């Protein structure tokens, strides 16, 4: 049996190498004193220092945080309620399923131009608020799917027991249902947060022309459009660190479910 595992290991090593090596190179380069991929001149954190001195990047980081936190709060509430509503239905509604699924599959470029057209038709000034509104769309769909997966294993007889013992619907929700789905709600919120931090296309179209609402991915896009800048390596490393931490945490909280 041992020998039959060897080809599998080779395949996995190759595929994980392909997935992680390019990113590992970025991380390594971010600590290269020269900043160039051609020569290693020594370990240095100077590119991280350069980030702290870059007003544009700091401003963009601030905007990203505002957008991600706001979109996460709204989408976690809406997405959780949607999941509860969908799972409580006696019969599945095809329309509801389609509406909740659509944000995850619609090409982002289409949603982006649709939102741009919509906001400009309504004469809404574009800015951070329009990015937040747009992010909630796909964030809530992901929160909903994470929470629903948890609700599928939820034992509704506990709820009935609570009601039989005289607890109100409200008390039952906060004392029974919510504590049991809470890991999934937090996992969903962390996923929404990561998605928002990383989202580029929809932000790009709904941010408007002003410099005031540039987010980090938009800033990165303008920096890498025309080649390599060493600061980007440091910034990329930091962002990937944040995403990976949020996702590991999310996975750990929701560990009974597969990703």
């Amino acid at each position, binding site marked *: 049996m041992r020998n*039959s*595992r060897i080809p*599998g290991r080779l*395949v*996995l090593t190759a*595929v994980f190498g*392909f*997935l992680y090596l*390019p*990113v590992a*190179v970025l991380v390594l*380069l971010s600590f290269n004193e020269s900043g160039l*991929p*051609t020569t290693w001149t020594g370990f240095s954190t100077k590119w991280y220092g350069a980030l702290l001195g870059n007003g544009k990047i700091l401003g963009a980081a601030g905007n990203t945080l505002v957008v991600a936190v706001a979109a996460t709060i709204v989408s976690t*509430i*809406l*997405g959780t*309620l*949607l999941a*509860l*509503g*969908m*799972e*409580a239905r*006696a019969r599945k509604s095809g329309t*509801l399923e389609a*509406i*909740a699924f*659509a*944000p995850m*599959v*619609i*090409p982002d*470029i*289409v*949603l982006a*131009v*649709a*939102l*741009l*057209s*919509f906001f400009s038709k309504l004469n809404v000034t574009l800015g951070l608020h329009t990015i937040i*509104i747009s992010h909630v*769309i796909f964030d809530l769909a992901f929160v909903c799917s994470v929470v629903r997966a948890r609700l599928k294993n939820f034992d*509704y007889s506990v709820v*009935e027991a609570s009601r039989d013992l005289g607890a109100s619907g409200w008390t039952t929700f906060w004392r029974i249902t919510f504590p049991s789905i809470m890991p999934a709600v937090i996992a969903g919120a962390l*996923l929404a947060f*990561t998605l928002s931090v*990383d989202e*580029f296309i929809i932000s790009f*179209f709904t941010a408007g022309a002003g410099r005031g609402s540039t987010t980090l991915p938009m800033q*990165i*896009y303008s920096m*890498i459009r025309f080649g*390599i800048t060493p600061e980007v390596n440091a910034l*990329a490393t930091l*962002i990937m660190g944040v995403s990976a931490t949020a996702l590991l945490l999310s*996975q750990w909280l929701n560990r009974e479910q*597969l*990703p």
Partner: protein
Amino acid sequence: MSYNAARPNLLAAPAVLWLVAFMIVPCALILLFAFFERGVFGGIDYNLNLDNFRRVADPLYAGIFLRSARIALTAAGLAILIAYPAAYAITRALPTRQPILLFFAVLPFWSNYLIRTYAWIVLLNREGLVNNLLRGLGYHGEPLSMLYTEGAVITGLVYNYLPFVILAIYSTLSKLNPELIEASRDLGAGPVRTFLRVTLPLSLSGVAAGGVFVFILSIGNFVTPALLGGGRFQMVGNLVYDQFLSANDWPFGAALGMVLITLMIVLLMLQAHMTARASGETRGASADA
């Protein structure tokens, strides 16, 4: 289930309202735009016609559509070829290790798309890592121009979407009833025949889901062609982008977007059909076994 006779519809209402107001209405709006024409000064002339859709069929644009479709199809095919053995290997790992392997296979998918694409600029450019490596290995010719080629665009697409394809194929493979494979082996089929006649057909729904996903996201992509194709490779996504942000021809951009959505819906329906058929086969096969 007396608990949420607490009005399921009321619970779903806020999210549904949000999605109707900010997803369905805007999409309906651009569907409408597609039937009008560009005004003289870039606005919209509300003059109902089908010119935009006729323009999509114009050889210039149809050519871009076909080329994007070819690139997207190649990316989908390559992603499946790489993902299948990986997903298969994960299902053969120890049960306790499977969730961990799967998690780390999918992790990159949730991280920043731009950064993952940028990593390939660092690897592929003329002063980049791959060329350096070649020089180190004794290659002294002109540095290879790998960046800004169709190959670079396809590599970027495969790299970015691979995790999802692994996930999709794994989820069908892991649900496969092991008794079917044993039965096939007991009946005298070798491992290759068992794979081709049992495992592969029963996992096609995951392959289809992954493939459709890569195809749709690739054909509508504008970031990868812009960054790794150096703007020389226009895909449908770039075309839509240009109509909205530079050519200022929103109705035509909207028509292009509508074609993308239609393509997506058709492919998803096909895939759902395949999945339904495959699960029917599994049920039948399980009953036989």
